[in-house]
C-alpha cells in the first residue's frame, strides 16, 4: 500500500535499467559475440523471457493483492505462455521436423542450409 504513495518509483526504475541492460546484452550476443548460432538463439531467447517477466511483474503488477483477483492474472499469463510454446514448437515439430520439403536438395528441414543455397543464387 505504502509503495503506491512513494514519490520515487524505485521498482519501475530498476525494471527499466534492467530491461535496457538485457536488450544490449542480447544485441551484443547476437551481433558481436563468437557464440555458435545455437547458443546465440538459446541465450537471447532466455534473455527475452527474463525481460518479459520484468514487464509482467515489475510494471504490470500482475500479482498485487489489492486487485482482489487472486492468482487469475498470473494463471492466464502462465497458460498463455505455455500455449505459445505449444503453438510455436508444435508447428515447427509437425511442419518441418519429419517432412521432405525439398527432395532435390535433400535437406528441406534444415533451414539455414537452404538459405545458404539461396544466398548463393544472389
Amino acid at each position: 500500500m505504502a509503495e503506491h504513495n512513494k514519490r520515487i518509483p524505485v521498482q519501475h526504475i530498476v525494471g527499466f535499467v534492467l530491461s535496457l541492460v538485457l536488450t544490449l546484452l542480447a544485441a551484443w550476443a547476437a551481433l558481436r559475440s563468437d557464440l555458435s548460432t545455437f547458443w546465440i538463439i538459446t541465450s537471447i531467447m532466455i534473455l527475452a523471457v527474463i525481460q518479459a517477466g520484468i514487464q509482467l511483474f515489475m510494471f504490470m503488477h500482475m500479482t498485487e493483492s489489492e486487485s482482489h483477483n487472486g492468482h487469475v492474472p498470473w494463471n492466464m499469463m502462465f497458460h498463455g505462455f505455455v500455449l505459445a510454446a505449444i503453438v510455436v514448437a508444435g508447428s515447427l515439430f509437425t511442419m518441418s521436423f519429419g517432412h521432405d520439403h525439398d527432395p532435390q536438395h535433400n535437406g528441406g528441414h534444415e533451414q539455414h542450409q537452404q538459405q545458404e543455397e539461396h544466398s548463393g543464387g544472389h
Partner: protein
Amino acid sequence: MERNKRHIKKWLAMLPLSLVLLLSGCSQLTVLDPKGPVAESQKDLIMYSIWFMLVIVVVVFALFTYMVIKYRDRPGRGDKDYNPHLHGNTMIEVIWTVIPILIVTALSVPTVQTLFDLEKPPESTASATAAKEPLVIHATSADWKWFFSYPEQNIETVNYLHIPTDRPIEFKIASADSMSSLWIPALGGQKYGMAGMQNTLYLQADEQGVYDGRNANFTGEGFAAQTFEVYAESSEEFSNWVEQAQNSPELTQDQYNKLLKPGLTDRKTFSSTHLQWVNHGTMAGMDYAIELHGEAYEKELHLKSGDIEIDATDEE
C-alpha cells in the same frame, strides 16, 4: 411409459449382437480383406483394436442396461436400494482410471511399432526369394487425374498403373495443384500428395488382381472422378507390359502441359516421364501448374453423376 422402457431393453440388447453379426460379415470389406503386407498389418491392427473396443462396448452396455432396468422409478419401489447421498468412491474411481490407461498402453505399443514399420519397404512374405529392391513410381495428382511415372523404366501412365506382385512399390507422392491423397484400400493406407513436398509410401501386392485406387482428399469439382485402377500382375507379365508401354509415343512437354489443365481425362501411356521438366514435389516445381493454368481453375465442369460412370465404361 412402460412400453418405452421395454423398447430400450430390447434395442440395447440387440445392438452389441448386431455388431458381432456385422463384424463376421466384414471380411468382404475392402480394408479388412487385404491383398498385400501393408494392408495386412493395418488390418491386423484394426482387428486387434476392435476386440478391445468390443469388450468396452459390451461392458458399458451391460452396466447401462443393468442400471436403467434395476433402478428405474417404478410404482411400489419405494426407497429400497435408493441412496441419494452416494457421492463417490475413491477406490472404484481409481480402478476405472487405471483400466483405460492399461488399454491405451496396450493399443499404443503395436500402433507405434506399425507406424515405424510402415516407413520401410515391407519385408517380402509370399516369395522365398531375398528382399527385392522397391520399384519406384512417382505418383503425381493434378486436378482431377493421376500421373504415374516409372523413372527406371522411363514410362508414364495416366489414371492407371501396373505393378509387379511380391515386390515393394515405393510411391513418391506429390501434387501439381490441390492437396490430394493416394489411397489404394486393398493394398494399404493413404498418404497426402502436396505441391512443393514429396511423400513416400510403401505398398505391395501379394495377390494378382485389379484394385481400385483413388484420391481420398477433397480437391474440388472433379474429385469423385479422380480414381485409377491398379493392375497387380506377375513380374513376367509386368515386364511384358513395360515393354509394350515403352513402344508408346513419347510425352512432350506441350502435351503434358495440356494434360495438367483442370479437367477429366482418360487413360494414357507414354514412353517418357514428365520428371525431365518438372518435379512438382520440389520447391522449384510447386507453382508449375498454377502459373500455367491459373485462369482455368475458375471454370466449372458442371459434372453430373452420370458423367463419371460413362467415363469409367470408356476405359479399356
